[in-house]
C-alpha cells in the first residue's frame, strides 16, 4: 500500500520530482560527459599507441642509419623494440593526393592495426597497407593497385590490407596543415622488400649491366642512406637514451621523444584540455545540482510532516516510515543518475566516435567510451548522499511524539533584520519588506536560489569568457600578427637563395625555422626577414611590437619553462649540427608556437644563417593564393583564410564544450529557479491567499513573487560576474601550457551571460506568478496555521 502512496505522492509533487531528476541527470550528465571524454581520449589513444607499437624515441641522422647502427642500438640495455623507419610524402599517381609513404623494418615498432585484409608481411615486395579512411574516401578496396611516387622513385603495389597507425593518429601533411583531410592525404605502408626492389630498379635503370654482388651492396648502401630514422621503444628517459646511443654509435644524433611527435603531443594536449575543462565547471555544476536537490528533498519531506505523523499515529514503526520516505530519494537519485550517465555517455559519444567531432581529427580503431571507476564511485556517492539526506530529514521529523509530528510544519519565526528601523526601511513598501523578511525566514531556499543563479552566472561568464578569450587570442594572431594574404611553405628542394628571390618576386617577407635543442627541450628558432611588414609580433599584453635589432623574443611558455627574462641568454643547439648559439633575450612575446624569434640581421651576427640547419621555409606575401604558380620548390600555399578556417575547425570540439556548458547552465538555472520558485509559491500560498482576500489583484501578487526571484537572481548575477572571471583565470592558468592566452572578459561575454541569467529568472518568475490566478482563497484559508 505504501508503494502505491509513493507513486501517488510523486504525482502530487511532480514538478519537484521531475526537477530533481532533471537536476541530477543534468549535473551527472555534464560531469560524466566532460570527464569521460578526456579519460576516453587517454585510454583509447594509449591502447592504440600500445597496439601499433608507437615509438618512444625517434633517432634521426640525415646521413642515414645503417643496419650496423641498428644492431648496436638494439644491443643496448632497455631497448624494447627497434626498427628503421621511413616516412615521406609521396604523390599518388593519377591524382593530386599525397600519401605518407611509410616503411618500417620492424613487425612490432611503429607498425599499425589491421582493420581489414592480410597481415603485414615485410617480404612482400608487391604489397601496400593503406589507411582505411583514405581508402574509403577514395573508393579504394583491397586488391586494387596503387602507385605512389617519391622524388624519382615509383612504388607500385596491390592494397593487401586496410590499416590505422598510431604514428599518424593525427594525419596531417606537415606543420602547415592543422586539420586532417582524409580525402586528399593519408598514409600507406610499403615493405622493406618493396623499397629494395624500387631502389634496385632505379640502380638498374642507371647501370643496366651491374653485377648482382655489386647490386646487393649498392642496394644496401642506398637503403642505409634512405632510412634516416630509427624508432625505438624504451622505458629509459631521454638523457639515458641520448647518452647510450651516442656512446654506441660514436656520434651524436638528434633524438626526439614521443612528446615531440604531433600525434602523441596533440592527443595528450586534447586530453589535458578536457581534463582541465572537466575539473572546474562540471564539478561546480554537479555541486549546484546536488545542493538544490538536497534542499528540495528536505522541503518535500517537511511538507509531508502531517502524513508522517498520521502514519506514526496509525502504528507504523519509525523504521518503516523512514524506509518509505528514503525510497523517494532513492528512486529520484537512481532515475536521475541513470539518465545522467546516459546523457554523459551521449555527450561523450558526440565527441568521441568515428563519426563524432574527434573522428575528424583522430584516426584510430577503438572508440570505446571509458568511464573510470572514480566516475561510478562519484555517481554512487551522490545516490547514497541523496538517500542519506532523505533519511536525515525524516528522522528529524520522527523525533517527537506522534502528536507532535501530526502538527503541521511551521517555518522558523522571523527575526528583525539589521536595516529595520532605518529611514530606508521605513520608506519601503510592504511588498519589499515582506520579500526581504521571507528571504531571511527561508534561508536555505533563498541561499539555494542565490547559489543557483550565482553558479550559473559564474559558468556563463566563464563559458562566454573562454569563447571571447579564444576569439581574441585568434584575432590577435590572425589580425594582429598575420598581415599577409598568403603563406607559402617551401619544399626541401628550395635553396635559401631560391627562397630569397622568390620572396622578392612576390614582394614578400620570409622566415626560416631552425629546430633546435634548449636543454632537453625542442624549440623552434625562427629567423625573420620582414621588409614589407607582412608579419608582426605581439608582446605579453597583445600589443603590436617589432622584432628587436639586438637579441630575440622568447614566447611566454618558453620564458616560463626556462625561467628567463629580458637580458638573459639562452643557448640553442640546432639539430643535425654540432653548433650552439647564445641568444640574448630582449623581450617576451605571445606566440602560437613554442618559439624564439629574431631578425635575420641578428641571426647573421650570430652566424646562425650560415648553419646547415638554417633553411628558409616560409614566404609571406600579399599575392593571392590562386595567383601563385605551383612549383616543385613550393610545398603548399595557404591563404590566411585557409589557416583561420583550419584552426576554427580544430577548435570545434573546444567550442562544442563551451556550447554544452552554456546550454546546461541555462537549463540548470531554469530548473533550480523554477523548482525553488514553486517551493516558494507553495510555502507562501496561504499568505498570498490572504492578500487576495484582502483585495490585492493577481498582478500585484505576481509582482511580489517575481520580485523576490529577481532580487536573488540579480544578486547572484552581480556576484557571479567577478566569480566567473576568477574561474576563467583559473582555467586559463591551467591551460597556460597549451595556449598563450590573455583572459578577456568584456561586455561581449558579460552582457549575454547577464541577459541569459536574468532572462531565465524573469521567465521563471512569470511562469510562477501566473499560478497565483489559481489560488483558491477558500481552500487556502481553511484550517489553522
Amino acid at each position, binding site marked *: 500500500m505504501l508503494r502505491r502512496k509513493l507513486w501517488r505522492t510523486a504525482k502530487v509533487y511532480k514538478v519537484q520530482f521531475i526537477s530533481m531528476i532533471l537536476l541530477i541527470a543534468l549535473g551527472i550528465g555534464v560531469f560524466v560527459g566532460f570527464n569521460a571524454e578526456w579519460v576516453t581520449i587517454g585510454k583509447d589513444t594509449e591502447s592504440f599507441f600500445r597496439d601499433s607499437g608507437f615509438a618512444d624515441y625517434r633517432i634521426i641522422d640525415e646521413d642515414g642509419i645503417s643496419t650496423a647502427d641498428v644492431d648496436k642500438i638494439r644491443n643496448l640495455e632497455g631497448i624494447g623494440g627497434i626498427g628503421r623507419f621511413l616516412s615521406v610524402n609521396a604523390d599518388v599517381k593519377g591524382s593530386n593526393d599525397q600519401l605518407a609513404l611509410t616503411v618500417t623494418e620492424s613487425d612490432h615498432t611503429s607498425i599499425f592495426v589491421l582493420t581489414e585484409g592480410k597481415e603485414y608481411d615485410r617480404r612482400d615486395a608487391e604489397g601496400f597497407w593503406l589507411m582505411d579512411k583514405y581508402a574509403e574516401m577514395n573508393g579504394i578496396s583491397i586488391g586494387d593497385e596503387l602507385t605512389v611516387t617519391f622524388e624519382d622513385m615509383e612504388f607500385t603495389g596491390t592494397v593487401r590490407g586496410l590499416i590505422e597507425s598510431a604514428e599518424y593518429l593525427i594525419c596531417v601533411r606537415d606543420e602547415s596543415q592543422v586539420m586532417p583531410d582524409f580525402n586528399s592525404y593519408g598514409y600507406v605502408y610499403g615493405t622493406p622488400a618493396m623499397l629494395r626492389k624500387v631502389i634496385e630498379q632505379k640502380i638498374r635503370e642507371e647501370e643496366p649491366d651491374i653485377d648482382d654482388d655489386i647490386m646487393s651492396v649498392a642496394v644496401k648502401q642506398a637503403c642505409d642512406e634512405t632510412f634516416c630514422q630509427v624508432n625505438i621503444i624504451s622505458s629509459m628517459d631521454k638523457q639515458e637514451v641520448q647518452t647510450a646511443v651516442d656512446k654506441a654509435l660514436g656520434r651524436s644524433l638528434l633524438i626526439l621523444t614521443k612528446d615531440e611527435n604531433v600525434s602523441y603531443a596533440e592527443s595528450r594536449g586534447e586530453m589535458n584540455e578536457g581534463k582541465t575543462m572537466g575539473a572546474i565547471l562540471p564539478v561546480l555544476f554537479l555541486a549546484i545540482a546536488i545542493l538544490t536537490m538536497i534542499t528540495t528533498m528536505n522541503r518535500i519531506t517537511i511538507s509531508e510532516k502531517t502524513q508522517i505523523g498520521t502514519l506514526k499515529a496509525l502504528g507504523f514503526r519509525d523504521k518503516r516510515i523512514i524506509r518509505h520516505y528514503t525510497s523517494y530519494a532513492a528512486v529520484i537519485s537512481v532515475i536521475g543518475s541513470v539518465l545522467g550517465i546516459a546523457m554523459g555517455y551521449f555527450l561523450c559519444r558526440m565527441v568521441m566516435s568515428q563519426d563524432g567531432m574527434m573522428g575528424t581529427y583522430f584516426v584510430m580503431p577503438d572508440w570505446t567510451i571509458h568511464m573510470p571507476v572514480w566516475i561510478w564511485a562519484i555517481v554512487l556517492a551522490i545516490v547514497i548522499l541523496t538517500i542519506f539526506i532523505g533519511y536525515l530529514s525524516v528522522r528529524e521529523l520522527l523525533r517527537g511524539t506522534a502528536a507532535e509530528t501530526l502538527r503541521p510544519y511551521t517555518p522558523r519565526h522571523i527575526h528583525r533584520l539589521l536595516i529595520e528601523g532605518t529611514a530606508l526601511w521605513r520608506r519601503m513598501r*510592504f511588498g519589499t519588506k515582506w520579500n526581504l523578511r521571507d528571504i531571511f525566514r527561508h534561508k536555505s531556499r533563498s541561499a539555494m536560489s542565490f547559489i543557483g543563479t550565482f553558479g550559473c552566472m559564474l559558468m556563463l561568464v566563464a563559458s562566454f569568457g573562454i569563447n571571447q578569450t579564444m576569439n581574441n587570442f585568434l584575432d590577435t594572431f590572425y589580425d594582429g600578427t598575420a598581415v599577409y594574404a598568403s603563406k607559402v611553405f617551401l619544399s626541401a628542394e628550395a635553396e635559401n637563395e631560391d627562397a630569397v628571390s622568390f620572396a622578392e618576386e612576390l614582394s614578400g617577407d620570409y622566415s626560416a625555422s631552425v629546430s633546435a635543442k634548449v636543454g632537453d627541450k625542442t624549440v623552434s628558432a625562427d629567423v625573420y626577414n620582414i621588409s614589407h611588414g607582412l608579419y608582426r609580433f605581439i608582446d605579453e599584453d597583445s600589443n603590436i611590437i617589432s622584432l628587436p635589432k639586438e637579441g630575440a623574443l622568447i614566447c611566454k611558455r618558453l620564458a616560463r619553462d626556462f625561467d628567463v627574462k629580458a637580458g638573459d641568454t639562452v643557448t640553442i643547439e640546432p639539430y643535425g649540427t654540432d653548433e650552439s648559439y647564445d641568444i640574448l633575450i630582449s623581450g617576451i612575446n605571445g606566440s602560437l608556437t613554442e618559439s624564439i624569434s629574431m631578425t635575420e640581421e641578428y641571426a647573421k651576427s650570430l652566424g646562425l644563417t650560415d648553419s646547415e640547419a638554417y633553411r628558409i621555409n616560409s614566404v609571406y606575401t600579399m599575392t593571392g593564393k590562386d595567383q601563385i604558380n605551383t612549383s616543385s620548390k613550393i610545398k603548399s600555399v595557404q591563404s590566411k583564410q585557409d589557416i583561420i578556417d583550419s584552426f576554427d575547425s580544430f577548435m570545434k570540439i573546444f567550442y562544442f564544450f563551451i556550447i554544452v556548458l552554456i546550454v546546461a547552465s541555462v537549463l540548470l538555472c531554469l530548473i533550480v529557479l523554477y523548482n525553488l520558485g514553486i517551493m516558494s509559491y507553495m510555502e507562501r500560498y496561504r499568505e498570498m491567499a*490572504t492578500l487576495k482576500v484582502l483585495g490585492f489583484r493577481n498582478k500585484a501578487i505576481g509582482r511580489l513573487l517575481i520580485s523576490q526571484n529577481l532580487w536573488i537572481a540579480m544578486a547572484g548575477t552581480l556576484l557571479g560576474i567577478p566569480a566567473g572571471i576568477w574561474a576563467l583565470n583559473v582555467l586559463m592558468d591551467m591551460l597556460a601550457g597549451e595556449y598563450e592566452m590573455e583572459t578577456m572578459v568584456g561586455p561581449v561575454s558579460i552582457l549575454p551571460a547577464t541577459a541569459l541569467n536574468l532572462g531565465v529568472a524573469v521567465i521563471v518568475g512569470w511562469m510562477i506568478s501566473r499560478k497565483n490566478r489559481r489560488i483558491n482563497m477558500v481552500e487556502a484559508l481553511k484550517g489553522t496555521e
Partner: protein
Amino acid sequence: MKIVKFKDVTRTYVTGDHTQNALAHVDLEIEGGKFVVILGPSGAGKSTFLNLLGGLDNPTSGTIIVDDTDISTLSSDELADYRAAKVGFVFQSYNLIPTLTVLENISLVEEIAPDHMSAQELLTEVGLADHAHQFPHELSGGEQQRVSICRALAKNPKILLCDEPTGALDSETGVVVLKLLLKMARDYGKTIIIVTHNQNIAKMADVVIHIRSGKVTSVNEQLHPLSAEEVEW
C-alpha cells in the same frame, strides 16, 4: 437600507460524479449597520454564504447585490477591488502575514484600500499600540485576532465578515474579541456578519439567520440583543 441582497442564489460543487448544492435558491436581504449572526451545523452552507458575499467565490446561479453592486457578474480584478473597498474579513485562524509586524500587517491595506483608516489609531483603539512592532508569533491568539480585526477595519469597509472569529480562542478571550467587534461596528457604523455554530454568540445579534442544508430556514430579528458580558459562555 438593505446592504446585501441574495436573489435565488445557488452554489453547486461538482466532484467527479457527485454534485452538491452548498447553497440552494437562497433569497435573503440584510439591513445595513446590523450585527448579523448566521447559525447552522457543519456543512450547512454558512461559510459558502460568507465566501459568496465576500467575493471569494462565485455563485453557480442567482444574483448577489452588495451596496447596489451586483458582485455575481464581476471579473477577477473587479472582485479584488470589491474586497479591497467594501468588505473586511476576520478568520478563525487570523491569517496574519507572519513576516510582517503588527503595524505592517494592518498598514499593508493602505496600498489597496482607497478610503483606508489609520493603522496606528486602530491599534491604539484595540489596546495594541505597544505591540505595533512585534511579529504575529510574538502575540497571543486573542491579540492576533484583534490585529486581524484592525486589518479588516483598516480598509474602512461597509461590511465586516467574520468566520468563526472566536473558534480558536478560549471563552474569556472570545468575549474580549466579540466585545471589540461589537464596539468597532457600532463606533464605525459597520455591518457585521458572523458565521458560527456557537448559539451563545447569536444572543448578541440584531438578526439571527439559520441555515440548514444550503437553505435559509429562518431569519429572526432580536429587538433586545444581549451584551457580551450578559451572555453565559
